[in-house]
């Protein structure tokens, strides 16, 4: 009897090892710490996709394996990605909320030849770290340069004062917005950078008010800070008819709008996704998402996770379940689909995301504050990626 048990166990072990009927996706995420909320939103986005489209594709079962990176820790992200490849035998690496983590894991993808899907990490250069990498979120220059050009041309704004958080994405946004805004004829009245951990914004806002620019451009990470900044602006009495307030999507995200109340009205933002978007695909997604997340609404992390899973599913369909990195990246290049955010594509050359950038204004619709889209710039490529391409062509 005992022998039989042992034999069964061995057989089972072999059976599961040789039955290559599952595709394992390893996701190192910041499940704890300051960026825990972003990671749980992203994971829920991925899970929602699997709930809506089943967990089997091209005859293979999809399995998610998550690991906690804990925060911006490139060494940990790299180690966990390696462990996922070596120990858990994952076929695909995915997730990555933060740029430094995605950069470090890019090496693992390149060396171990694993297909990698970046579902957030928005710094342009991330995509160059591995030839097997695609991105399904957004890049900062994609939105911010577009916004800078829009503000100076269609937005008819001639002057701006920039306020960004003093960290990588903040600097990138400041540079992207400033350079595009200036190139289109605008001028910058001044700039300020907030410390990353900054509880009280009143002094910064007061300074901006005293300078009195025609517009203020804001980039600030999601979380509690957009609301705190919004409240400081309301308290200081920034009149949005006189001083236009421009920002990225985080500035007027759901939680920020809730705690700002009516003081958020008329803030203009450029972004690629909003859960209030009226397209039917999005409404279906939001409904399913609410069921997965326990009532929470999706945000741009969620849509990155959702579309990341879509890209994986479609790629696997094209390769008929083959998870070889060369085959997968070949199939993923040029992939086009309708996402809840609108049309999108994986650029066949840069492997980066191509999508619409929406210009929105906060308005009251049926008593609720909503980011209402009033202008769309269609199918924007990452401008920084395009410049890299031209630079490489020159050489």
């Amino acid at each position, binding site marked *: 009897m005992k022998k039989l048990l042992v034999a069964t166990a061995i057989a089972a072990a072999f059976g599961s090892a040789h039955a290559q009927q599952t595709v394992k996706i390893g996701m190192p995420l910041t499940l704890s*710490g300051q960026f*825990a909320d972003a990671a749980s939103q992203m994971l829920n986005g991925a899970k929602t996709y699997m709930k809506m489209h089943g967990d089997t594709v091209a005859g293979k079962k999809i399995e998610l394996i998550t690991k906690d990176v804990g925060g911006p820790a490139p060494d940990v992200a790299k180690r966990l990605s390696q462990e996922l490849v070596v120990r858990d035998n994952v076929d695909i690496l995915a997730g990555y909320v933060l740029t430094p983590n995605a950069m470090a894991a890019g090496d693992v993808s390149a060396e171990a030849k694993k297909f990698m899907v970046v579902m957030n990490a928005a710094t342009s250069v991330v995509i160059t770290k591995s030839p097997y990498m695609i991105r399904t979120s957004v890049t900062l220059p994609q939105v911010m340069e577009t916004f800078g050009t829009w503000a100076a041309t269609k937005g008819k704004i001639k002057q701006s004062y920039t306020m960004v958080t003093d960290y990588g994405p903040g600097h990138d946004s400041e540079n992207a917005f400033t350079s595009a805004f200036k190139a289109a004829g605008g001028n910058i009245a001044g700039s300020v950078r907030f410390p990353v951990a900054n509880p009280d914004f009143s*002094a910064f806002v007061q300074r901006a*008010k005293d300078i009195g620019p025609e517009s203020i451009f804001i980039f600030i990470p999601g979380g*509690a800070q957009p*609301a*705190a900044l919004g409240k400081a602006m309301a308290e200081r009495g920034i009149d949005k008819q006189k001083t236009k307030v421009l920002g990225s999507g985080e500035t007027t995200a759901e939680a920020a709008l809730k705690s700002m109340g009516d003081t958020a009205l008329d803030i203009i933002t450029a972004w690629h996704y909003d859960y209030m978007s009226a397209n039917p695909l999005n409404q279906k997604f939001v409904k399913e998402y609410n069921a997965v997340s326990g009532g929470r609404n999706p945000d741009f992390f969620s849509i990155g996770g959702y579309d990341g899973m879509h890209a994986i599913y479609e790629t696997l369909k094209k390769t008929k379940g083959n998870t070889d990195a060369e085959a997968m990246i070949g199939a993923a290049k040029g992939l086009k689909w309708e996402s809840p955010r609108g049309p999108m594509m994986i650029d066949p050359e840069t492997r980066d995301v191509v999508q619409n950038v929406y210009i929105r204004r906060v308005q009251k619709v049926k008593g609720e504050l909503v980011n209402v889209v009033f202008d769309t710039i269609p199918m924007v490529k990452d401008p920084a990626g395009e410049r890299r391409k031209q630079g490489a062509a020159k050489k």
Partner: protein
Amino acid sequence: MLWSAVGVLFDGFAYGMLLFLLSVGLSVTLGMMNFVNLAHCTFAAVGGYCTVTVVNRLGWPFLAALPLAFVAGAAASVLLERLLFRRLYRATDLDQCLVTIGVAFMSIAAFAWFYSTEPQSARPPEYLLGSFELMGRNFGVYRIFLAVTGLVITGLLVYSLEQTRFGARIRAAVDNQRMARGLGIDVDRAFLYTFGLGGGLAGLGGALSIEVIGLESTLPLSVILVYVLIVVAVGGLGSIRGSLVAAIVLGITDTAGKYYFPWLGAFLIYLVMVALLMWRPLGLFGKR
């Protein structure tokens, strides 16, 4: 120019009052009871989440939620003191640090579990929002409310510790435990009340801070804890006056630094801390 300085002083003062409420409890427990409680901001988060719950889910008015936040913070701290911390009064500083920081981590996970990691808000009534303009400068109504609340609490605290029998017992228990015990004062109980009072004030501070800094599950180990520790260190352990002065000085320095020298960022308050501690290593009002 001068008038902008008045605005900065006012903003800094209000912010300092908030820091004072958050930190005075820690100063008292650290100074009087020699207990290093790095989980102090957990009580603030308890107060904050309690306010969010009763205001958003039960529809209480914001002002009515404030006393409840005090009670919740006090209850949480008393519970922890009875169950855990009192066993550690004689432990080494390192042991105390490790246990309390563990408690802080666990509380973060607990808040995330029950309230999700989403930032929370609880809107005060309209008459506390907005600002009024005086000679071209805006004075936030909520900040005036903060400053007044802080001053009232300070008055109550000083009065109850220096003029009442309860205060006399606490001071006796702290100054000379053996003598106090000999006189029949229940020292354990005095410490419990002190701890509860400190936790309650932090809970109130946590509730009041939602409107200024927001509320996230990571509050117990956020930058606020750093500010609180700076206030305690600069003010001098165990001194209420010290905490008050230090909180106001730091609040004003921080605000002025961000207004006049934004490129220095938040660095200025660390410079001020170092300078003050070099001048008075025991803190402004520290005795030991």
